[in-house]
């Protein structure tokens, strides 16, 4: 059974004549990291919104097709400023679990765990609005990870991280994959070819699977 299945997704933004996504179908399995690459403006973030339900729930336009998934989906936006809004990093990480009405000890344990995992302990009481772009991206990622999603959609999450932090996050993602989580990462570069199980190219609204990093088939 697939963790996420998208069938015949098409989408057009209001006022646009062209479809940004055209008849996109894809499946994601448990314990797999999928890379999604392609030219700027090609529809990658739009597809991320469709896979996570942001489209059509929050962003209006002409949407057709369907997406089904097993379990919870978490998305980390490309623009961390759009996702980070609370007075401290600790508040950011607590927000999701609090809204799930988890017990306080559980929330505290999750916050401590994620702060340590991402190397952010010294940022706990900092105001996210005052952090650097890369630090904000980490906070946004941490805020989603405390929700323990089954499926993680990451939109250029590594793009503003320094090399050391990027490698740390990749290790975290590999650990999540080994726990059976499903991850799809939008990245422009070959930053994640070393951890991706499959790579898709989205260009001109259409999807094409590329040879896997291990030299597998291309469809």
């Amino acid at each position, binding site marked *: 059974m697939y963790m996420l299945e998208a069938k015949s997704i098409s989408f057009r*933004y209001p006022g646009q004549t062209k479809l940004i996504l055209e008849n996109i179908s894809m499946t994601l399995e448990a314990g797999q990291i999928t890379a999604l*690459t*392609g*030219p*700027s*403006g*090609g529809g*990658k*973030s739009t597809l991320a919104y469709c896979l996570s339900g942001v489209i059509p729930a929050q962003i209006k336009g002409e949407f057709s097709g369907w997406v089904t998934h097993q379990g919870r989906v978490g998305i980390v936006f*490309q*623009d961390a*400023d759009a996702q980070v809004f609370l007075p401290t990093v600790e508040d950011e990480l607590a927000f999701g679990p609090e809204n799930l009405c988890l017990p306080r000890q559980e929330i505290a344990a999750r916050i401590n765990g994620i702060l340590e995992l991402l190397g952010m302990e010294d940022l706990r009481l900092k105001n996210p609005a005052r*952090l*650097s*772009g*890369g*630090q904000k991206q*980490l906070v946004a990622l941490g805020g989603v990870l405390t929700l323990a999603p089954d499926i993680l959609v990451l939109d*250029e999450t590594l*793009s*503003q*991280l*320094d*090399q*050391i*932090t990027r490698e740390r996050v990749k290790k975290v993602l590999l650990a999540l994959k080994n726990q059976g989580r499903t991850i799809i990462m939008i990245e*422009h*570069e070959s930053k994640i070819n070393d951890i991706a199980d499959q790579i898709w190219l989205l260009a001109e609204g259409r999807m094409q699977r590329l040879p896997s990093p291990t030299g597998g088939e291309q469809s």
Partner: protein
Amino acid sequence: MIDQLSLCLYKGETTALIGPNGAGKTTLGKLLTGIIKPAAGQLLIFGEDARSLPLSRIGQKVGYCFQNPRQQLLAASVEEEIAFGLVYRGVRRETIETTVDSLLELFEIEHLRRAFPLNLSWGEKRRVVLAACLALNPQYLVLDEPTVGLDAERIRTFNRVLARLRENGIGMLLISHDQEFVRENAGRILPMEGGSIIDDLRI
């Protein structure tokens, strides 16, 4: 955030500012362009004390592209965004149109001429901001993470643009985690950590 930092940046030279997240790179970039004022010390921009210069005067000489392009967009269409600074300076309409046309072509965003900039993808926003910055013919550029959101082909195009600017004597400060981009463009690299510049490397 930054304590007792002294630095000279030279016209006609491309300098890269690198370092871990939270090192103070963006803060330094904003200080150098007058967007934020230092608590102490002196900042000279092309020989003039920045404290006595309004932002508009600094903007005539130094172009700045924010790390988050969304923070820099304010017009209703891409062509208005690129033209904005030129209109504000009272440049002739024909010159504005020619400049806008050539920049739309250079950054491959002609098809977005009438698009609402805030609805564009991050990479498209980035290209619009770069175009708007270059429209003003700055003598010095500060670019904060300019390749984030750009695909490999568009980074190559951008590298060619920067090379041409260097040939014309335009200096720039590139704040970037993109090691390949830094290697391609910078003749001087300043690693930064904990609010201080810890080295000064000539390539």
